[in-house]
């Protein structure tokens, strides 16, 4: 089986999100990596080194900058004439583009897979992770997005794929990138962090959220996450959100502070290796999934914890 893998990158480097997708793709067959972008030669060379990638296809043109689905999807759809499967990470990048590719080639996407059972059969969470469906695709070609936390990351070293330039297609001309307001942080990325400290609405304000959580995260070398309630209340930016509709994370240690544990939040973090919960309500559902719980007032506990670590 020949597999076309869509590489997620930031214009200069391959993003970590690509690596578990390579692992999943390799379970299906020989992996060819598609790098679409503008001035992405260095990304192509980087992708060629990923273990498990047999060939890199680079589509380089100004209209492929900023991952516009309107321009990237047709490039992938055209290539799919020569492939049996299309694989992308189940990130906002992959979720934006993969269904568009699927519809262009008349395939029903299998989204957010957490295992490859065989060439046609996959498992995926449904109902916010309250159920796991085993699905068999009867389409001749597959279009798949991969949940990053469910597969090991492929190594960034060890591959020596050939790199080929391909036709970058035309500008659809109906969509234009205007800008991005990126949250700046020196901390690890949420989806690849080993430790995450996450805060909920109990923090009461943006100031308290950051003045309490940031020093703790710094002590632990952790990324900072948030519940939907905390993001809705404006305590943290949208890209901090962990949950069914935010980011799916599975760090070594997830510290949930002032988070009650709604099913939509648990959907995003319950595969963490160890869950620590700090909450003043001892009946909070978060304690039903936590390995270590501490009942008490976060405004007292968090500063004390930060000091004692």
């Amino acid at each position, binding site marked *: 089986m020949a597999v076309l893998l869509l590489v997620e990158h930031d214009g200069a480097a391959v993003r970590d999100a690509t690596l578990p997708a390579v692992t999943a793709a390799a379970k299906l067959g020989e992996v060819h990596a598609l790098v679409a972008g503008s001035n992405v030669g260095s990304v192509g060379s980087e992708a060629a080194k990923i273990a498990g990638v047999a060939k890199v296809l680079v589509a380089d043109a100004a209209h492929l900058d900023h991952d*516009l689905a309107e321009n990237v999807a047709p490039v992938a759809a055209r290539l799919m004439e020569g492939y049996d499967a299309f694989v992308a990470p189940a990130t906002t990048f992959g979720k*934006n583009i993969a*269904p568009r590719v699927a519809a262009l080639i008349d395939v029903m996407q299998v*989204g957010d897979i957490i295992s490859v059972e065989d060439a046609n059969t996959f498992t995926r969470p449904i109902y916010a*992770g309250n*159920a796991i469906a085993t699905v068999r695709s009867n389409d001749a070609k597959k279009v798949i997005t991969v949940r990053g936390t469910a597969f090991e990351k492929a190594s960034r070293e060890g591959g020596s794929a050939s790199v080929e330039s391909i036709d970058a297609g035309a500008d659809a001309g109906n969509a*234009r990138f205007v800008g991005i307001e990126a949250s700046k942080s020196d901390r690890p990325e949420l989806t690849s962090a080993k*430790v995450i400290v996450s805060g909920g609405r109990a923090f009461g304000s943006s100031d308290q959220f950051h003045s309490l959580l940031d020093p703790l995260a710094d002590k632990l070398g952790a990324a900072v996450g948030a519940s939907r309630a905390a993001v809705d209340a404006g305590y943290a930016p949208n890209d901090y959100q962990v949950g069914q509709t935010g980011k799916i994370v599975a760090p070594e240690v997830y510290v949930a502070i002032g988070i009650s544990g709604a099913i939509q939040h648990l959907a995003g973090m319950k595969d963490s290796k160890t869950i620590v919960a700090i909450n003043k309500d001892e009946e909070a559902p978060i304690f039903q999934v*936590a390995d270590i719980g501490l009942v008490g007032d976060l405004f007292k506990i968090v500063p004390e914890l930060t000091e004692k670590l």
Partner: protein
Amino acid sequence: MKVLVAVKRVIDFNVKPRVKMDGSGVDLANVKMSMNPFDEIAVEEAIRLKEKGVATEIVAVSIGPAKAQETLRTALAMGADRAILVQTDEEVEPLAVAKILARIANEEQPQLFILGKQAIDDDNNATGQMLAALLGWPQGTFASKVEVGDGKTTVTREVDGGLETEALDLPAVVTTDLRLNEPRYASLPNIMKAKSKPLATRTPEELGVDTARRLETLKVAEPPKRQAGEKVGSVDELVSKLKALGVA
């Protein structure tokens, strides 16, 4: 301009889904059903565009069993002008839903088609993108802000790296994220008024769309359960536990 919104009848947001004993699916018998929360946001956004004088007519579309009429009546009570139910008792996958919606779009010629970014039952997050592909329209997915003017819509999108803004030519597809707006509750008078708003019923066959499933669900199982661990009594104990885990 005309705005179309797609709404899906799903298990209520607050109900904990239970997997059937025979592994055939999730038990929906006698379970409270509601409009998919992301679709409520889509309906609300369309109404706000009408209140701003940008939209002139809002048509809500649903695909599902006869009971999906209730979901459409909710959309009408919130403020949609009329509704179309594409009635089928089969479970329809996003690709076929997108094909049906594309046919409706060709008939109705809207300038904007707003959908929820995902349904909270199958969590696919695919229909809007597929619809945009089939129509050849641009797509503004995971929107947290939508502005319309000069033949364009400017959409702010919640992406993994922050907030991205794109300008799309109309007609366009927009899919909603959580923070786009807070949907209103329908008032009692509006619920009464909604009963007399037009609701047309169509079928996938009449629209020429094959809804045969491409994905076969072989099994639905409960996820592995986590066991509650232990509670510690003090910060000192927590610190020593964290140290034992090697993170401190």
